[in-house]
């Protein structure tokens, strides 16, 4: 696809692209992946600790401990985002800090902080889910599609 696009460009632009490609600073893909893996794994490790605490010391089962664990993680992220620590983590780990639920919390809270100056209703309330909205929309939508597929498989496929 990239080649097809290139053919439509004028020759000068093509030459510039090859020129830029050679001089571009290469992204350390492998190291980035390892960083994301380690930091993302560490966040999940903390989540597991919290979940185990809920099972051992509070009246939650493994099934029901999920909800309070998520709430706690988002609560912690709120503080980390407010104090500006989560930005540093995000800069270091990339996807490792955005894929876990803490990334979702960060996107909600950072948007809320950013639009604080526009007032509470139209600013904070209106823009809070600016970044996190797509996550909810497509999360719900894909859950719907998967449920549809599962229902069809069970009803007609006989699994």
């Amino acid at each position, binding site marked *: 696809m990239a080649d097809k696009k290139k053919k439509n460009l004028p020759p000068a632009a093509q030459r510039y692209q090859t020129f830029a490609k050679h001089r571009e600073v290469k992204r350390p*893909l*492998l190291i980035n*992946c390892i960083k994301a893996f380690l930091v993302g794994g560490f966040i999940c490790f903390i989540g597991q600790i919290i979940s185990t605490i809920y*099972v*051992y010391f509070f*009246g*939650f*089962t*493994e*099934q*029901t401990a999920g*909800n309070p664990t998520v709430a706690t993680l988002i609560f912690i992220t709120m503080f980390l985002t407010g104090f500006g620590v989560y930005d540093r983590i995000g800069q270091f780990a990339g996807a490792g800090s955005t894929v876990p639920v803490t990334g979702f919390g960060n996107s909600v809270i950072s948007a809320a902080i950013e639009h604080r100056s526009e007032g509470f209703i139209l600013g904070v309330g209106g823009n809070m889910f600016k970044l996190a909205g797509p996550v909810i929309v497509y999360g719900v939508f894909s859950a719907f599609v998967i449920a549809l597929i599962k229902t069809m498989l069970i009803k007609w496929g006989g699994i």
Partner: protein
Amino acid sequence: MKTLKILLTLGLICLLIGCTTNNNTSENNQNVNFSTISANSSIDQTASNQAKKRLSQREVITSVNAVNTDKQMIMAFEIEHNKRFQLTDIRKDIQKNMNKEFSDLKVEVSTDKKLVLEIGKLEEKIDQANISKKKLQKEVDRLIKLMKDKT
């Protein structure tokens, strides 16, 4: 491109290692973690002792806890960690077996860590005979409710 290749190979290696079935399960685990409740305690626990013995013969199970009243029996067990993918199947199988074996009792089987802990505590209380029959019934009802709780 090169890093992509390295990543792909790493992923493939991880996948292949994960897929190997370890055949060295010959170490037949005799050390299943369970304690039979002494017969001299005031509340009859022969059914759950029997169930524990039966379950401990299965290789995958690492610990069993069970408590019964006159009408109900609740049990929780833990399995080897690498068998957790088949957890639902194993649980269903055991539930079916236990229903058949103890047809006069209403059996509830769980694999939840919370239930393992709670039933273990209850066992201890029964063993030390510092729980009344009424209280036991109440506790068992509470635990069954906990088992059924999904959200």
